[in-house]
């Protein structure tokens, strides 16, 4: 099956810093989403982005499907951005079953 790798596994930032999280996948996808899991375990959908670029406030994401990667940009980070960021992909030709990566644990320090 499709493999999803995220990097870096851990990241510590000072408040106000910018960061880039990466998601690599091993095969063609028809679905790619980014999620933020807060310290209380709640998963929030950040982007549905199988291709192209989207922006939502301080967050933006870009997926280059032909090169099998996606990037999540966080600008002017805040302590509330802390948590785990997951990339999840749906394999081309498969039903809509998302495969999750192992996540990037982000800690934003004041």
């Amino acid at each position: 099956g499709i493999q999803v790798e995220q990097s870096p596994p851990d990241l510590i930032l000072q408040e106000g810093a910018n960061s880039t999280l990466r998601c690599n996948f091993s095969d063609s996808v028809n679905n790619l989403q980014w999620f933020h899991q807060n310290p209380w375990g709640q998963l929030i959908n950040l982007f549905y982005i199988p291709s192209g670029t989207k922006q939502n406030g301080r967050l933006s994401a870009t997926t280059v499907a032909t090169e099998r990667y996606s990037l999540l940009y966080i600008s002017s980070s805040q302590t509330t951005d802390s948590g785990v960021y997951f990339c999840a992909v749906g394999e081309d030709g498969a039903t809509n079953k998302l495969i999750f990566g192992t996540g990037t644990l982000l800690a934003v320090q004041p």
Partner: protein
Amino acid sequence: EADIYQTPRYLVIGTGKKITLECSQTMGHDKMYWYQQDPGMELHLIHYSYGVNSTEKGDLSSESTVSRIRTEHFPLTLESARPSHTSQYLCASSETDYNEKLFFGSGTQLSVL
């Protein structure tokens, strides 16, 4: 934001008990899912449904069962809980059309003693 609800939020139970984790959504989504997540790990799909009377097993083998009698309701049942079932269980739903954005409930943290 999404309206998908899970109860209970936390459950501590003894070995051998039968349990049902509830999941309901008010968005009219046809597709619903159950994921299992151990601490610090990724999510694994254990069950999914594409509509009423449709249920399928996911990629991770699970001893739990699910049912989908109504569109809005997708409960998960363990007939005999064991300590190996201790985990977080997350319910999700999505639309059927081209924008299949996934929405999650708050999860149920299950501890089997």
